[in-house]
């Protein structure tokens, strides 16, 4: 299906669209553009993520935001891109990133069964003193993410919006404002949702009822 969409565009006489163009079409309601976009983004992200994960030494953090951004820069071929496009790109990438990292974590876990690892989230969000700077950076520490993934799936059943918000922020590195824009909700709602989601997730993760642990 995805491949067919890809072929259709490849076979048409138009020049192959850039990532920016695809994003634009998608924003304009063209679902096919998304279908073309996803494998491109997925492959790029996967390559990058694996490269970084292999290089990371234990105890280091993986920066999803950096990967997503790097993927975009590479896919956009160095072209300047609009802020709006970036946000939408990240929305796509966040979902894919989650998939990639969780797959990776599962495969690692299979190899290291028994290692008692905790999922650790950290969002450097306590705003630094001058609020203008220090973009929100998010890290995944010890990327055993299966618990988080499961918890997020459960959260999605209760509150899909919150689950997506966490995904956007955690895997995509979006700020609360950017995530609000993607979800089409107000900033204050996003902020409230984020707080509640954190509370819920931290409780669920502590209970250890998710995943195999």
């Amino acid at each position: 299906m995805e491949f067919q969409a890809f072929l259709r565009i490849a076979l048409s006489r138009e020049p192959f669209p850039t990532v920016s163009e695809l994003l634009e079409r998608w924003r304009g309601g063209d679902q096919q553009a998304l279908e073309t976009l996803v494998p491109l983004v997925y492959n790029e992200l996967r390559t990058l993520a694996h490269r970084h994960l292999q290089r990371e030494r234990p105890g280091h953090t993986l920066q999803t935001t950096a990967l997503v951004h790097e993927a975009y820069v590479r896919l956009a071929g160095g072209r300047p891109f609009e802020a709006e496009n970036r946000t939408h790109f990240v929305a796509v990438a966040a979902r894919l990133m989650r998939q990639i990292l969780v797959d990776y974590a599962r495969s690692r876990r299979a190899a290291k069964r028994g290692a008692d690892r905790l999922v650790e989230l950290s969002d450097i969000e306590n705003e630094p003193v001058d609020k203008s700077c220090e973009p929100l950076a998010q890290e995944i520490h010890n990327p055993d993410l299966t618990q988080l993934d499961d918890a997020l799936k459960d959260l999605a059943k209760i509150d899909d919006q919150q689950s997506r918000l966490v995904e956007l922020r955690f895997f995509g590195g979006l700020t609360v404002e950017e995530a609000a824009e993607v979800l089409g909700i107000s900033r204050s709602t996003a902020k409230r949702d984020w707080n509640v989601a954190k509370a819920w997730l931290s409780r669920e993760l502590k209970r250890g009822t998710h995943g195999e642990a």
Partner: protein
Amino acid sequence: MEKHENWPKIKAIVADALERVPEERETFVSEACGQDRSLRVEVKSLLSAYESSVGLSESKLTTQLVDAAQISRSIGPYSLIRKLGEGGMGQVWLAEQTAPVKRRVALKLIKGGMYDSTALVRFQNERQSLALMDHPAIAKVFDAGATPDGQPYFAMEYVAGVPITDYCDEKKLKIVERIELLIQVCEGVQHAHQKTIIHRDLKPANILVVEIDGKPLPRIIDFGLAKAVVPEFMGAAQFTVIGSFLGTPGYVSPEQADPGIQDVDTRTDVYSLGAVLYVLLTGSLPFDGERWRRRPIDEVLRQLREQDPPPPSTKAGRQDDATNTVAQARGTEPKQLVRALRGDLDWIAMRALERDRQRRYATPEEFAEDLRRYLRNEPVQARPASLLYRAHKYARRHRVAVAIASLMSIVLVSFVALQSVQLRRTTRERDRADRIAEFMTGIFKLSDPNERVGNQVTVREVLDKASQDIDKGLAKDPILQAQMMHVMGNAYLNLGLYSRAQSLYERGIQVGGSAGGRKSRDTLKTMHDLAWVLLQQGRLPEAESLERRVLEMQRREFGSDDPDTLGTLSELAFTLSQEGNSKEAVELNSEVLEKQKRILGPEAEGTLITMDNLAINLGEAGRPADAVRLEQQALEIHFRIDGLDNLGTVSAMTNLARSFRDLGQYEESEKKLSDALEIEARIFGPEQPETAETKYDLASLLARKGQIEEALSLLDQAVDHGLPPLLAARMGTDPFLASLHGNPRFAKLIARAKKQITDAAAR
């Protein structure tokens, strides 16, 4: 798992509760949940999960970034006490050092991705200089090390202060008091610069204020860190993602934010200090950092490079909700604040925030000194001569057009600059200055995207428009009009558009002649240039006769020693030598040289140029020995004043070599030419056309001696790098190259050189 149907309610209460301070939550939850026990249990379990998950920091689901910190609570000789903060770079902990001294330190733990394996080494290199820093405004850096798994940390003096901006607002410091504080900061940064340390990340969060005996004292933290800590993979991506160590958006200088620029110097700190001043004055950043953060890197960079921020007074004058708060925090009213900022403080801030670091204050000390001048009510350096500034400003707003039309703008701006000095005295003259500015504005309008048709504006188009406009545009002020015609004629001349230059000069002479007199300095200068353009067109007799006329009038009006008169005399000498009358050229240039030695000084640049010219004339006049003698003098002076790697020196050298050759002293000539070639290769690069002529000359000497191979290889290079057409055409008949005749390689070379000439002609 909770009951789904209750979720909206749970969610609302939890969210509301989390918006309150922790102490109030309990009461709030009790009230909100009322009698619903299961609701209350659910809400409380979520809230307690939220609160307990955050560990040491008060209210986040944050767990520690740093294994070491979590496990042992001590790193090296430091035991961690509490976390002070967290930012793009990592965490800062208050820690206690136990050995060798017992003291409290701020321990900075650098997080992954922000360093690589060389970070520590770089920092160790930096330590020596860091140790030399000793200034009350700089917090000391004690030590650096790494955790067992390689994560670097830095120990520095713990400063229990608040960021300078917060301090000033809390204490409602007045503008003057804020400036006094910033001056102290500048002094600290200056001290560091003298010890060759650049901060690279100056911002309020790194400038803390402590009170000592009730007096505020700024302390700059994190000196030397930026250099040690570099993101693992540098590049544009890192800027938006990490956004901290290529600098902090809003405070980072354009050059530091540009991944293409490697040589960031101390002036980057001046820019950041400028941004801090801006925030202290207006309460907001020069550019909106919040909005920036969400924009793509290219756009941020472009804005930094191409846009000036609004002056502080404009920023402060914007009517919005914040205006009152900002003014109140400065102990004043919005209107008064704008008035206080307008003028000098605007100038000072904008000078520090110049995009082009060349135009910034060169040092923090200069910046501080201008602030002190402001406090003392003295004129500030940042305020430029008004007209020049406007012309400048205008040119800068239209950077693209000016880049294309740089020649034009250089000519015009220098003209205007010259004029403005003379024009500022009276009101009438100020009107004239305004007219120039207005006219120039009109010219540059062409490069405004709204006004132009195609994509590219050429110098030519700008000039053509200007020369059309000038008849009507400045008709009220014929003297000025004539001056502008002259200037534009020069611009055409520099473009090689001789007939257009000529007609503008002619009109300038006409207009200026009837308004200011035929013998005015300006009119005569224009006539001088008209002669030059005739000369360029090969109309030698006309040029000569005009030059003689001008010369006579200049002698009569200003005397024989006047620089204008000497200039015309020198030009006449050149014309004569072109006509083959080298004997008279020698006489005239000798006269010029004598006078220049007296008036300008024996070693002035103008004098040296005439020495070179006269030496050439002497050679042409068949007096190579005199030529050699003069050129040797010139070379000696050039060398003494400008050193070896200098254009003047090298050109004196090649001239001397040619005189030696004319004299038959081939060995001397060859020596000078090889020396010259070496210098040229150094200053121009080995493959530049500038070296071709020297290579040709050297080849001709080698060919004469029978060193065929060397000669051919040099000629080969000379042709490749662009031999001047005159030499290229002469190659086949040059007697010095006679030994090469019949050599097939030489025949091919000649063919190639000739082809280059015809190709060039066809272009």
